């Protein structure tokens, strides 16, 4: 494995005055696909939001491509090459598909190569051309997820983070998105994603991290995690 592109360690994060993360860690290698697993309320989204700068850690370190990014504000971190697709897509509902996608390249680092990147992203997601002028909130859930990922890619990230990419989607759409993730990864973009379904997640990922009650309790190669007895304990409580 090549070097790490992202390393987050010892993260303590509070939401209001309630501590959600207790020294959690996660790392992603160059060009790797990593799954972030764990039951509801384990702190997966909180961890991702901390990496992208939506939340500030109370303690701990986030290093991306050799640079410490913990404590930077979100709009600065995008420029470094981390793109974050939020849970439930979070498109701008009353903007068109095209406007949504173009806003993905708003940060100065991505704006220069916008047209070229738009061509590449359109190849992956033809619907951003065929539905260009439709308002985002009128799309189906699957279509919205595609546009959200397309928008995330417009930032030309080296690491794409997707929070629950398959949430509420039909199996056929899930397969489609899995295929797209593989193609994105084949272009050299590392992917970190959150998923509740362990088998499905580890079928896609190279490695996995399991969070429980705000702590990283298990990590390793996907095949090892699937077989480990601990994973049953975390998810089935026994």
């Amino acid at each position: 494995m090549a070097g790490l592109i992202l390393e987050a360690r010892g993260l303590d994060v509070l939401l209001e005055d309630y501590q959600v993360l207790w020294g959690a860690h996660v790392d992603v290698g160059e060009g790797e696909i990593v799954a972030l697993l764990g039951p509801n309320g384990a702190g997966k989204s909180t961890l991702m939001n901390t990496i992208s700068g939506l939340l500030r850690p109370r303690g701990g370190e986030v290093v991306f491509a050799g640079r410490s990014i913990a404590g930077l504000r979100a709009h600065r971190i995008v420029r470094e090459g981390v793109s974050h697709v939020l849970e439930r897509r979070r498109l701008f509902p009353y903007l068109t598909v095209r406007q949504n996608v173009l806003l993905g390249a708003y940060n100065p680092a991505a704006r220069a190569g916008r047209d070229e990147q738009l061509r590449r992203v359109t190849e992956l997601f033809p619907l951003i051309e065929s539905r260009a002028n439709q308002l985002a909130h009128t799309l189906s859930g699957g279509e919205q997820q595609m546009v959200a990922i397309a928008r995330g890619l417009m930032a030309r990230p080296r690491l794409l983070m997707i929070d629950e990419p398959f949430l509420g989607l039909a199996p056929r759409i899930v397969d489609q998105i899995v295929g797209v993730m593989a193609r994105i990864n084949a272009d050299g973009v590392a992917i970190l994603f959150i998923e509740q379904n362990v088998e499905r997640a580890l079928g896609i990922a190279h490695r996995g991290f399991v969070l429980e009650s705000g702590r990283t309790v298990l990590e390793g190669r996907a095949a090892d995690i699937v077989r480990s007895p601990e994973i049953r304990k975390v998810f089935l409580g026994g």
Partner: protein
Amino acid sequence: MGFVYALVAAGLSLIFGLMELVNFAHGEFLMIAMYVAFFGWSLGGIDPVLGAPLGAVALAALGWATYHGVIRHILSGPMLAQIFATFGLAVFLRNMAHFVWGVDFRTVQDPWLSGRVSLGGVFVGLPQISASVAAFGAFLALYLFLSRTETGLALTATAQDRQAASLMGIDTERMFALGWAIGGACVGVAGALVAMFFYIYPDVGGTFALLAYVTVALGGFGNVPGTLAAGVVVGLVEALAGLLIPPAFKYSVVFLLYLAVVLWRPQGLFGRF
């Protein structure tokens, strides 16, 4: 008058849409814009028509300063703190005006545009007509800015989803400050236009602010084109009511209409919420 109301309301609506915060000092912003136009005329000999850009710049600066000086610090505070902060600013500005400029009514004498014109048999004051045209122009400029420019798009995106916008690389705090500046500019233009034909005194903001809240609520909070339509409705209702019943009661018809609409459609005529 509808277009002028719409322009006043647009600033309010923009700020609300951006950060779910009602600027209770909006009427006082208008009052200050009118004084800016007045002193531009009395001290600098600048006619209010030309004073509109002056008002826009002055009030944009005031809006920007308000954001950085006051609003930024209470954004994460409880809703009551936000209400009291802008309400307190309103009281402060109004009493400041009493103190500095006194309670006298002032008017701009002999503006360039005066007299009446006949529009299909209806006589309308020239200042009023030109104020409408200018207000409509300013409104159009605002609309084009929001929908056609990158920065306008970023501002709209911030209004629709603050977190997602910051993940696009949009500095949302800068957008908030910009929103306050633009909201101020709208009311700055409107104030200068109104100064052509309205008395200027420290409490003048009250009437206009009340109408602006009605307009924003009718149009749907945060919906800029809806605000224009609602402004026209309010202006027309006011004018027609003034013709049909004693003019002293004309605003009661406007507020009655407001009550009816809010009972029937709480999100406003064109609202999304």
